[in-house]
């Protein structure tokens, strides 16, 4: 007998084609808006046109009178049921429908429920709201100014617009490192507001059945179980009577983690009307009201020694959270994992001061393809590193290499106390430099200069924490960040696997089956994967922060091992030997002394239902809840080569080289797909995605004509390389990957442009590095700040 061929059965390392594609390529996906329930009504939201205004009155009488209108909800309706406000994921409150005043443009003011969405939209326009405009705040400087208007006058003990001041690190140690420095490199940066913008907007269908008291909600959510708990708490419904179903999700990227007012309003409407109520957000609603990302200012300082060693780091950040503090992040941390910055560098002293403020902008603070603010952390880190290398007059690659944590120095305490466990940073950098032809770059730069073009090369190297928890340190609203998998092996050896995660394009239906195949030797095609239904899936924290493979994926391996452990007992029974004499090879148990005598895992499955040992519980099913011992720490090196046309400020990407070390790759095809998607978003943030505000708080970038996403035409080609350093604590050696490229990528693009314009005296151009900003910087020799308000 030979072992099963792992690649042939679609196990680990197989670029197995995706199971979910079979329905998507036929147009047979099942997204929220595709679902039609009997008697279903439609909801539309009336939003505030003003960024800050007191509501004097709302007259909805004309809307009520329109044929086909079934219900109009206002703040007053919600307040009567104690639902005008809801808790956020960061222990703040957020208005569901405005009662006292509106605090950002696009805030939800009223909802109309009608027979069809066209009628509902007409009726929204018939609602008359009398606003008294108030002064508007669009950036932290205005927010913190003396006498600034108080945005959150609804809260007690909120004398000003500051949400928190938070500090982490060793201030004294860092001060003394700076005192000993030969040189201090300083830079001020703004990571602008960005929006994840999955192509599918948010939506819900709430279906309350009075006869059974059951509430079923179809929802565009990345975390159905958390939503169930939130609905139970907010709507005061018994949790067993709430079923959240997250069907196919048309992209999430963090945008579909929070609870939105539209969800809550549709649920109340269904309860009041006892009919299903569908709400599908339009794109403008999505862009101006749902979870934005970033919007953080940095003053950063590095203490440097002449030989290139970094002695200490200071980061001072100010985050613009909009009108409600609704960041989706672990509760211990105020500015997410910002203090994971510089984790790939060996720096003894570090200090971070973080402040958060309210402004009259949409709330959010979601981690857009990012693990809780690590995108900002890594961008700031790599921009600071490049500036420091320039200040020292050192080669930027060499400067990084000197300060990298060495391969033999793991486990390693990062500057702010995280524990990294593995990596080959120098090797990744070498692979990248070799691929991009770094040696020849200076020569190319000179040749380009003769043509009047500026050539630049940008590097970004980083390790980031992915896959929260462990549960000791990571929780959201007190719920520990573990995850789960339930595996049922049927009598015929086929299997059903369910997890607490929720794919939004990551391909879980394909890869989870590969982990089962790897652990049990059951062909992947024999494993059906289901997620997203809280009535059937085990409790989990959902999919974001690149945590699926590190946490839920580990749970899949662990539950498979539990199954194998029981199957071993069954095998011993079938082979009539003691369990100690049973050996395992992929897909089969055999007698140690007689390898040709064995039973397959499928034969064990039959026996679990038909011929189990005396005293053994029948069946072959189990569940595993996995609490990871640590985060996983993938490493990436991204190198970009650009050509800038000084006459127009336009920059073109000549090469984009990505070296990713995400440990063991379950499905290389899917991993590479994740990397390319992330690189594209990195390019988008660096180059074009621009969502900002004018002085009146009007959102500039409220549709895809203004908020530009890259198309196939602009998006550069990507050259992917890999290094594999298995994660020492993950059951199958995997690390998170979904977000690395979006996290590490932006700095590579910006560094490349800054390298190209280096001779001009320009030190920084804030993202997006638009051609007009590059042009202006080159003309004036001045840095370009991207802070709002923008002039219109």
């Amino acid at each position: 007998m030979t072992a099963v061929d792992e690649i042939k059965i679609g196990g680990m390392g197989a670029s197995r084609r995706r199971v979910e594609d079979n329905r998507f390529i036929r147009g047979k996906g099942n997204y929220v808006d595709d679902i039609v329930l009997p008697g279903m009504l439609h909801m539309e939201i009336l939003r505030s046109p003003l960024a800050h205004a007191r509501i004097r009155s709302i007259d909805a009488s004309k809307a009520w009178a329109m044929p086909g209108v079934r219900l109009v909800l206002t703040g007053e309706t919600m307040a009567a049921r104690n639902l005008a406000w809801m808790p956020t994921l960061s222990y703040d409150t957020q208005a569901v429908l405005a009662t006292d005043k509106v605090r950002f443009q696009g805030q939800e003011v009223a909802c109309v429920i009608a027979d069809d969405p066209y009628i509902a939209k007409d009726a929204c326009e018939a609602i008359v709201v009398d606003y008294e405009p108030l002064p508007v705040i669009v950036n932290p400087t205005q927010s913190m100014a003396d006498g600034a208007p108080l945005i959150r006058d609804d809260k007690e003990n909120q004398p000003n617009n500051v949400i928190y001041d938070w500090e982490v690190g060793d201030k004294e140690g860092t001060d003394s490192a700076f005192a000993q420095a030969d040189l201090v490199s300083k830079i001020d940066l703004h990571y602008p507001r960005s929006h994840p913008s999955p192509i599918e907007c948010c939506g819900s269908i709430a279906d309350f059945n009075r006869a059974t008291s059951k509430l079923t909600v179809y929802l565009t959510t990345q975390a159905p179980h958390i939503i169930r708990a939130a609905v139970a708490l907010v709507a005061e419904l018994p949790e067993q009577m709430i079923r959240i179903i997250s069907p196919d999700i048309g992209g999430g990227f963090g945008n579909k983690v929070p609870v939105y007012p539209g969800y809550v309003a549709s649920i109340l409407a269904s309860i009041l009307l006892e009919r299903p109520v569908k709400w599908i957000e339009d794109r403008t609603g999505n862009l101006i009201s749902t979870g934005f990302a970033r919007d953080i200012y940095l003053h950063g300082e590095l203490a440097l020694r002449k030989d290139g060693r970094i002695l200490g780091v200071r980061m001072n950040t100010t985050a613009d959270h909009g009108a409600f503090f609704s960041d989706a992040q672990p509760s211990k941390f105020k500015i997410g994992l910002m203090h994971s910055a510089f984790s790939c560098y060996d720096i003894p002293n570090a200090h971070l001061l973080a402040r958060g403020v309210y402004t009259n902008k949409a709330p959010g603070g979601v981690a857009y393809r990012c693990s809780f603010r690590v995108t900002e952390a890594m961008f700031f880190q790599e921009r600071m590193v490049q500036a420091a290398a320039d200040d020292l007059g050192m080669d930027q690659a060499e400067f990084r290499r000197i300060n990298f944590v060495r391969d033999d120095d793991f486990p390693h305490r990062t500057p702010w106390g995280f524990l990294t466990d593995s990596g080959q940073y120098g090797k990744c950098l070498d692979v990248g430099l070799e691929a991009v032809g770094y040696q020849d770059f200076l020569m190319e730069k000179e040749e380009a200069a003769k043509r009047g073009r500026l050539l630049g090369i940008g590097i970004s190297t980083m390790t980031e924490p992915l896959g929260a928890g462990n549960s000791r340190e990571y929780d959201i609203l007190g719920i520990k960040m573990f995850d789960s998998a339930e595996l049922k092996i049927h009598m015929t050896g086929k299997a059903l696997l369910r997890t607490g995660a929720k794919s939004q394009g990551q391909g879980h239906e394909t890869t989870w089956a590969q982990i089962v195949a790897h652990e049990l030797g059951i062909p992947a095609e024999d494993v059906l994967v289901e997620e997203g239904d809280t009535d059937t899936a085990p409790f989990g924290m959902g999919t974001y922060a690149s945590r699926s493979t590190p946490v839920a994926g580990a749970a899949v391996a662990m539950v498979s091992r539990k199954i194998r452990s029981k199957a071993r007992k069954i095998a011993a029974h079938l082979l009539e030997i003691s369990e100690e004499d049973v050996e395992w090879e992929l897909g089969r148990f055999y007698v140690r002394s007689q390898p040709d005598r064995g039973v397959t895992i499928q034969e064990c499955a039959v026996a679990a239902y038909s011929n189990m040992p005396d005293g053994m519980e029948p069946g072959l099913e189990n569940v595993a809840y996995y609490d990871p011992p640590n985060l996983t720490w993938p490493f990436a090196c991204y190198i970009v080569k650009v050509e800038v046309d000084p006459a127009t400020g336009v920059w073109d990407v000549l090469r984009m080289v990505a070296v990713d070390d995400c440990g063991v790759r379950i499905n290389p095809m899917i991993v590479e797909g994740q990397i390319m998607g992330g690189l594209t978003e990195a390019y988008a943030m660096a180059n074009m995605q621009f969502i900002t505000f004018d002085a009146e708080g009007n959102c500039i970038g409220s549709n895809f004509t203004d908020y530009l996403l890259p198309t196939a035409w602009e998006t550069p080609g990507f050259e992917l390389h890999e290094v594999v350093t298995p994660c020492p604590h993950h059951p199958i050696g995997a690390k998170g990957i979904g977000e690395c490229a979006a996290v590490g990528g932006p700095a590579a693009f910006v560094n490349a442009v800054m390298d190209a314009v280096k001779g001009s005296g320009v030190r920084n151009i804030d993202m997006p590095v638009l051609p007009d900003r590059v042009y202006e910087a080159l003309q004036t020799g001045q840095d370009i700040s991207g802070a709002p308000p923008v002039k219109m």
Partner: protein
Amino acid sequence: MTSLFREVTPGTAEEIPVREITVTVNGQRRSAVVEPRLVLAHLLRQGFKLTGTHTGCDTSNCGACTVLVDGRPVKSCTMFAVQADGHEVMTVEGLAGPSELHPLQEGFKEEHGLQCGFCTPGMMMASKALLDENPSPTEDEIRWALSGNLCRCTGYQNIVKAVMWAAGKLDGETAEVQA
């Protein structure tokens, strides 16, 4: 015959102007009574229950709603249903034959040209329009032809490969027929 059913308050039906239209959808003649302002995407999705055509932006930018009207790619969120009266519409549901997938469908799966799947129907319809006109496009021609369709997941590289794959397969099929 399909009609768009709408429950109304008694006595108000005459206030809603409607028009009867006939559209050939995926080879099948279908009629409907529609409001003039109903957009084609909604007729297809809500009226004809062809939910493979998605809407993602309302402003003709994202292309998720792309269908073929008389063989040309059209963003069905920006065309009124009444404008399709008398015309032929092809949606993603019309791509596959009775027993086999269209090479574009195979290509998108084979080259991992999709992740969340939301933009995919529009991408494939825009690609079909390209390949119908230009059976062996270059990478640049594919990128240009798809520049009206947004994808947030893939970074487009594998979409380009998927279209190339389909072009290769279609070319092989044509050669077979000619032989």
